[in-house]
């Protein structure tokens, strides 16, 4: 298929349809509203259901219903709206249901603002709702990845019967790049035996219920499910990590600037590298074994607290200096990242 120019949000929406998604229910909020707007006309063309729900809560719970019936179901939000979806995500997990939920991150706590941000890392990776769970989290860094990750997200969701989150941000969502939308594929809503249908007299009744009620071995079942995800689904990209003395760790839009920082620093003779987590959960611990010469790790995130530092410390057994280069309201700049990395390197020498 030829490349077209699409906004990140639009590419994500079109690619969801290509992946067989035929149910969407969501609520508008900047900077993700283009997904809703696009699907409001496009979903009908492909014969699916689009519902602008009365709230995010309704949206996520309609997704739960559609998922229980076997549909590839999607909802999307940002910031405050994404918080409202947490209860439903917890229920999806409890019910062993696949679904894809997109968070086009914006800045700030509470209402925050509509500028790009990466402040939802903890909420995305720690299980943002109540209870004892994780969700798989994929982090695209381009419009093309926004498109490519949709089929992967739905496939993973069904493989594990578990919700998958997409950690996009306002920059990825709002920018336009040339993108190739993957081939359309059909999804058969009767593909899986666990989905619920109308039940004729005499046929065995299927139920979607909390796995805690239905599975006497739920403790082992759930533990094994998360263990398998951690073992099998770590995704990452390492850029010049093997001989790097300082390693940047960044995802999404920040990782693009870090790639530029690595190139610029290396041209000046400073051995900088980057680990780019593509899954935020499971965190790609495996990526860190390649960092054999590293003296320090620097996370680059659009937030104040450096939320990913915890995971970097765990991945490196807290044996290294770990710091954070944060940018608020602005996308980080390569010069500032290099300066901070050099600073860490000098301290490491002493």
């Amino acid at each position: 298929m030829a490349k077209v120019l699409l906004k990140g949000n639009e590419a994500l929406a079109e690619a969801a349809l290509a992946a067989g998604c035929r149910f969407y229910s969501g609520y508008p909020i900047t900077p993700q509203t283009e997904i809703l707007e696009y699907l409001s006309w496009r979903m009908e063309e492909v014969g699916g259901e689009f519902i602008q729900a009365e709230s995010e809560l309704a949206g996520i719970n309609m997704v739960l219903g559609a998922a229980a019936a076997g549909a590839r179901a999607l909802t999307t939000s940002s910031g405050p709206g994404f918080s409202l979806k947490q209860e439903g995500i917890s229920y999806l997990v409890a019910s062993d249901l696949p679904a894809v939920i997109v968070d086009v991150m914006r800045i700030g706590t509470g209402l925050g603002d509509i500028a790009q941000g990466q402040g939802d890392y903890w909420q995305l990776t720690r299980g943002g709702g109540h209870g004892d769970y994780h969700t798989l989290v994929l982090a695209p860094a381009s419009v093309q990845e926004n498109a490519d990750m949709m089929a992967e997200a739905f496939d993973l969701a069904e493989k594990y019967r578990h919700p998958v989150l997409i950690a996009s941000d306002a920059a990825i969502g709002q920018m336009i790049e040339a993108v190739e939308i993957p081939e359309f594929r059909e999804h058969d809503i009767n593909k899986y035996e666990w989905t619920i249908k109308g039940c004729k007299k005499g046929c065995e009744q299927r139920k979607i219920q909390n796995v805690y009620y239905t599975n006497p071995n739920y403790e082992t079942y759930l533990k094994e499910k998360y263990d398998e995800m951690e073992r099998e689904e770590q995704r990452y990209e390492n850029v010049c990590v093997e001989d790097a003395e300082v390693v940047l760790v960044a995802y999404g839009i920040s990782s693009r600037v870090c790639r530029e920082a690595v190139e610029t620093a290396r041209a000046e003779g400073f051995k900088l590298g980057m680990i780019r987590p593509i899954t935020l959960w499971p965190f790609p611990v495996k990526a860190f074994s390649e960092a054999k010469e590293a003296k320090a790790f620097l996370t680059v995130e659009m937030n104040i607290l450096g939320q990913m530092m915890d995971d970097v410390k765990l991945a490196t057994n807290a044996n290294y200096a770990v710091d954070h280069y944060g940018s608020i309201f602005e996308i980080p700049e390569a010069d500032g990242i290099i300066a901070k990395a050099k600073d860490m390197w000098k301290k490491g020498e002493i």
Partner: protein
Amino acid sequence: MAKEIICAGFGGQGVLTAGMLLINAGMEQNKNVLFYPSYGSEMRGGTANCTVKISENLIASPVSKSPDILFTMNTPAIDKFEERVKPGGLLLVNSSIVPADRSYRSDIQVIKVPVTEIAAEENNPKGANLVMLGALAANSDLFSIEYMESAIVSFFEKKGKGKFNEKNTACYRRGVEGR
């Protein structure tokens, strides 16, 4: 090296379309392209801008600290972005509405074209952005004058608006002439 362009003006002056025309021209040459609009609660008659990057290599950030080209359609756009232009860079000014006695940085090339008046003369008032694109093509090495014109034509054809192309190219060519 990436070529970085900021297009800015009043909403309705076609600055976002100008940005789209530029990345479409880049994409059709198989270059990496990126367009980042200002977004959010804008109002009618307010300002609009977008950042465009066109490169042989991967493009990192969607924002531009120092654009090679600043494509402006009004005075507030110059006020806001002139200081960012790369030394030796190009500033395109709409002399139909920007006061003639305005002074500019001396280390950049400033091209003044009365694009609003030219578009009106061509009976295509919405084509002022195309006049400015003509001036951009004539005064930079981003795209050849002929290629930019063909890319504009194909962009509108793809959008089903090919019937306006005669008027549109007339505007573009006046911009190339600069008057």
